[in-house]
């Protein structure tokens, strides 16, 4: 008798209700759901003030200023999964909600202002 690979022939058990596998999968944070368009998904992220990563093909479709977002100018290239098309890319652009951005980055403007304050403090002989 010929033997082949064992196959699990147990019947699938489908449980009606809220804990079906499909519904459980929907809760998994795997990126944009199949049913959502990229634009709507990105807007959801922005509504939650989340960091948005976009690959070079998706980034030009996003208008950060309209949503109170700023591009990470300190680090114009970021590594990660594009929130638009779910592709791992080494040349993503990162966008931050403006208020969060100030908490997370030392911007060139801040660095220049600090340098000026330091120069002034040394010139006048004391720091504030």
């Amino acid at each position, binding site marked *: 008798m010929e033997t082949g690979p064992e196959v699990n022939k147990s019947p699938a058990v489908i449980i009606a209700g809220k804990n079906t596998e499909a519904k459980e999968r929907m809760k998994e944070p795997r990126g944009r759901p199949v049913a959502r368009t990229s634009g709507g998904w990105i807007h959801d992220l922005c509504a939650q003030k989340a960091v948005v*990563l976009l690959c070079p093909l998706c980034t030009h479709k996003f208008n950060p200023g309209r949503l109170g977002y700023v591009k990470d100018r300190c680090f114009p290239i970021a590594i990660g999964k594009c929130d638009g098309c779910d592709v791992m890319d080494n040349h993503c652009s*990162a966008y931050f909600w403006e208020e*969060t951005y100030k908490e*997370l980055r*030392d911007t060139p403007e801040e660095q220049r202002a600090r340098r000026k304050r330091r120069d002034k*403090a040394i010139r006048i*002989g*004391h*720091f504030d």
Partner: protein
Amino acid sequence: MKFYNTIGGSAPHYRRYKVAAAHAVGAPVIRTAAGATGVTIATTTSTANAIGVVQDNGADYNAGVNIPYSTTQGDVEAVYKVIINPDAIWRLLLNEGATDGTALTVRTVSTAASDGLVVTTGFDYSSPQMDEGTVWCTSGANVGQSRKITSTSTTAATVIMPFLNDTVVGDTFQHAPYFVGNSPFVQLTSNLLNADNSIAVGSGAGFSVLDLELNGVSDSYVLAILIDHVFGVST
């Protein structure tokens, strides 16, 4: 904690991770504890097995709603973006104590030193121990100069490389328990976002000090790297 750069100059690497609680933006997270639901928050004195630093507070399907951490069935899972570069440099404000936003205390010279080698103020530099830390001048002829502390007493910090000018009564100085590479610890403030400057040299969480930005009482910083990182060479 602000992302400053990476040692190698590479781009920040973002990953979305499940979390074990509602972690603040800018706080470091560590490997998940047994029984926890995801990456766990660090403590003020330990960042062992660090994963990275939280960059946002989640993103999922509930449009317009920040994702709270919830274990209630039916609620969406809290997932945060984290910068995971093991060589990332983090910038932390120096605070006088565990409360973030507390300015450093001004230390005023009470006894002059004509050799520029001793900074004598009313502060006890031996408790908490500041030996091998840093002292810098915030007003007086030596303003802007810093030196490594090489010995301490109950009233003074001594340096080997003299300040360029004599220290005179009324000059003000600051000190920090940190020095480049020599103090592999930075203690975090209670909100885990910045550095506690009031601790002894060699105590705190696992950071290696890369550099110091020494300015006034409310704008001095330590630049540090998480040395016990799960994605680094040594964990």
